[in-house]
């Protein structure tokens, strides 16, 4: 039994290879890009809209609202990263209903890549928002003693992000695979439904945690130009 779609090798040349994770990811990317392109090709700015446009507007404004609720002031600045995290994980999960499909998020490589992206994006957003000194100062807040703990926290949360998503997705796929061999009739359907639910929850958790980390990195910034600078 394959634990991960990484082991599904389609092509290999030296260390270069195309495995199931990469292939399914490309498939998802194509689906999302082409779908978006097709739907946003003729967008209406009036009051009459298509159902697909309504769906996308609900999704985008929902993500925007969630980012704003986390505490980020200009959600349109972060929606590219946080929103894509959510949509990618959610789409990877929804597609589990397709036979023969193996979610790329069930591979620790994918979740590690996403966690590394968050690991790199958080300081970048923090530095972009308050400068290098301002961002680095946040590591010695409230005292210098907290510096090692903050650094450990950065790594540990990245690891947690990766393992949490991988564990949930992989276990879901694994349970379904096992159940299919034992009770191949109705029970796997319920488990698939449960897997869909947990997958959506994981997508939400992953993206909202990323937003929270970004918000934490930009937290010391002054609320607005009129207020006094934070000390």
């Amino acid at each position, binding site marked *: 039994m394959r634990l991960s779609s*990484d082991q599904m090798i389609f092509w290999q040349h030296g260390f270069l290879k195309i495995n199931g994770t990469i292939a399914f990811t490309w498939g998802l990317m194509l689906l999302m890009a082409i779908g978006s392109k097709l739907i946003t090709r003729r967008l209406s700015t009036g009051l009459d809209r298509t159902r697909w446009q309504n769906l996308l507007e609900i999704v*985008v404004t929902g993500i925007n609202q969630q980012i704003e609720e986390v505490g980020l002031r200009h959600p349109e600045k972060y929606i590219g990263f946080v929103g894509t995290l959510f949509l990618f994980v959610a789409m990877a999960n929804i597609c589990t209903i397709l036979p023969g499909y193996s979610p790329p998020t069930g591979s620790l490589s994918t979740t590690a890549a996403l966690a590394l992206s968050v690991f790199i994006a958080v300081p970048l957003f923090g530095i972009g928002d308050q400068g290098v000194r301002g961002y680095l100062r946040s590591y010695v807040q409230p005292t210098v003693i907290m510096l090692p703990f903050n650094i450990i926290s950065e790594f540990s949360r990245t690891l947690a992000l990766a393992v949490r998503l991988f564990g949930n997705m992989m276990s879901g796929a694994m349970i379904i695979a096992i159940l299919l061999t034992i009770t191949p009739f109705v029970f796997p359907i319920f488990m698939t439904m449960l897997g869909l639910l947990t997958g959506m929850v994981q997508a939400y958790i992953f993206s909202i945690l990323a937003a929270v980390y970004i918000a934490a990195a930009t937290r010391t910034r002054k609320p607005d130009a009129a207020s006094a600078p934070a000390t």
Partner: protein
Amino acid sequence: MLIDWFTVVAQALNFLILVWLMKRYLYKPILNAIAAREKLVAGELSDAAAKKTEAQKDRDEFQRKNEEFDRQRAALLSKATDEAKAERARLLDEARKAADVLSASRHDALNGEVRSLNQSISRRTQDEVFAIARKALADLATVSLEERIGEVFTRRVHSLNGKAKDCLASAIRTTSDPALLRSAFDMPAGQQAAIRNALNETFSADVKVRFETTPDLVAGIELSTNGQEIGWSISDYLASMEKSVGELLKSAPDVQ
């Protein structure tokens, strides 16, 4: 090994490409469309607010004009009512005057008709009485009516006495003009002589008499000299009858 580092790098790159794709084809167009719609809605709302303000202004203006119109209408109505009252009074006055004039003219016309009727009655009565008297006298006597009148006059002259006789005698004596004797018909010479004799005997003088025919007397003889008069005629009786008939008509109710 659960982690394949090549796959990790590839997936990280894939994810970055996906971020770019999503930004390019999803977030930007959708957010732009939402912003454009919000702008459109905001524009429409502000337009609606402007229109509402304008409508409120127009409504106020209309209300003001309406009130002004009401005031003017009330003033005009009051003025028109006063003028109508004055005109009504004037017209009523005119109508009353016209009615008075008409009533007066009708009254005059009625009086004229009454007079005319009186005259007709008088004339008809005279004619009828005359005819009846003539017929009666003709039936009763052999002499003509004129002869009987002459006889009656002669008898009356003879029977004159007292104050009437003295007045007439002094009138005859004081004038040089002949006494005028009027009769309704041409008097025969014999009758004229008889009358002349009777006068001469009565007044013991040669009384000069001028005979004249006057149809107005109807039937009768009348002697006048120097303002004094004696005679007999059916006209006298008719005058008395006319007077009584006239009084009777006066006492009768007005003709409607």
